[in-house]
């Protein structure tokens, strides 16, 4: 926090003292003022980005969960599917984003597809790893009680995967925002990505940076939300200290 403040102060001082043109490097104060002036446009575009992010992420989460269950119950599927998924991760966003826009148009769909594409595999891996981390003794215990495979999955493997799931969630949610902005940058009617592109083309680095600030805030907020959800979902995780 302190270092961030110092950075901004230094930046402000440098711009004020050097007299550098605001079209090259705008001062933080100017970015803030311009950003506030443009708040309605920024809010509208942010909302579009937020929508793309959450829809895309919800789709990829559901798909990742579905596939994780599938590969957990049918092991051979894992070896068949994972190479395909890994290839999707090696596609460069810069190349794939315009193509997806070309195929799916300027609406919400291409953003959802791109967000899902960048977040699906990390979430799938996190879940699969989480299932594998299940305590063998707990599984043996359940089996000795006569529990079915479905029962063992629900009672042991799924809860064991929660910490891994949330770790994956925290990373993926930041990818998701970046993915949405990338898709918008490649072509969109609305969204922070297209806003940034327009501001750049109009030689307004202050508005570019204002949009960057907004997207950073958006990412941090989503990140914070996942931390809160994790705390609520895993109350036992923070209890180890208070022994009798």
């Amino acid at each position, binding site marked *: 926090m302190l270092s961030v403040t110092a950075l901004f102060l230094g930046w402000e001082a440098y711009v004020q003292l050097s007299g550098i043109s605001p079209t090259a490097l705008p001062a933080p104060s100017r970015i803030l003022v311009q950003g506030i002036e443009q708040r309605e446009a920024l809010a509208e575009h942010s909302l579009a980005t937020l929508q793309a992010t959450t829809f895309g992420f919800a789709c990829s989460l559901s798909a990742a969960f579905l596939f994780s269950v599938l590969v957990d119950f049918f092991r051979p599927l894992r070896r068949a599917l994972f190479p395909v998924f890994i290839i999707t991760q090696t596609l460069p966003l810069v190349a794939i984003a315009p193509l997806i826009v070309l195929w799916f148009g300027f609406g919400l769909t291409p953003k959802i597809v791109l967000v899902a594409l960048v977040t699906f595999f990390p979430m799938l891996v996190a879940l699969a790893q989480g299932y594998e981390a299940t305590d063998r003794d707990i599984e043996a215990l*359940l089996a000795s009680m006569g529990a079915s495979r479905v029962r063992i999955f629900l009672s042991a493997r799924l809860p064991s995967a929660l910490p891994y799931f949330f770790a994956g969630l925290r990373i993926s949610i930041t990818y998701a925002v970046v993915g949405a902005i990338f898709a918008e940058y490649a072509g969109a009617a609305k969204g922070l990505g297209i806003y940034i592109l327009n501001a750049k083309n109009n030689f307004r680095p202050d508005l570019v940076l204002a949009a960057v600030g907004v997207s950073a805030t958006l990412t941090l907020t989503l990140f914070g939300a996942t931390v809160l959800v994790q705390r609520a979902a895993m109350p036992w995780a923070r209890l180890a200290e208070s*022994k*009798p």
Partner: protein
Amino acid sequence: MSTPRLELRHVRKRFGDLAVLADISLSVRPGEFVSILGPSGAGKSTVLQLLTGALAGDGGDILVDGAPLAPGSHRFAFMPQRDALMPWRRVIDNTTLGLEVEGLSRKTARARVEPLFLEFGLSGFEFHYPAQLSGGMRQRAALLRTVVQERSMLLLDEPFGALDALTRREMQHWLAGMWTRHRWTVLLITHDVREAVLLSDRIYVLSARPARIVRRFDVPLAHPRPSAAAPQVAAIEADILKTLFHPEE
């Protein structure tokens, strides 16, 4: 003579090239407390895995109440080597696990275990998480989870192995008291000679891998047992230790 609750006849088991159990024969009668004592890695846990159905044997017979153990019958209540409490379940919901697997509703299952918390020294901790319990309490919770299943026999795999020496002694005496009252049929795995003598009616000493039964000790002392300092107890302990260190004599 009544039919044994459990009888193993020349049971063998190997994992690929590794012969783990060479020849295991033992029997447990209803209401008896029997221990298997053996060196680390001998295959003690493997014996229990054959009984829970987690593994299939390579030879020999396992008889329960005189009939061969049917696969998937789940006749025994098993307590794994580490307590295997689920960190995400409250203590009470850990203890009801077996009942829930049997199909009881959470409410019915809770009602069944609640009265037992006092006897197990866990009252007031029903709604805590396992991470909030001490080592001894965790073991008592795991044992409670085991006994409420009301199976015909308890299989306990080194229940106190991970505890500090003081807590372990305390827990051994507590278990001795509990057993005197309930007379469960128990097969206990341990590598603690004193624990075996304090608790058991009969002790089977295993050799190192590939495991055979080296010797069988009957402990003809009444429960509750005299303290370890009593001469009869000390004599049995010495005898067992000699067998463990010099199995061939």
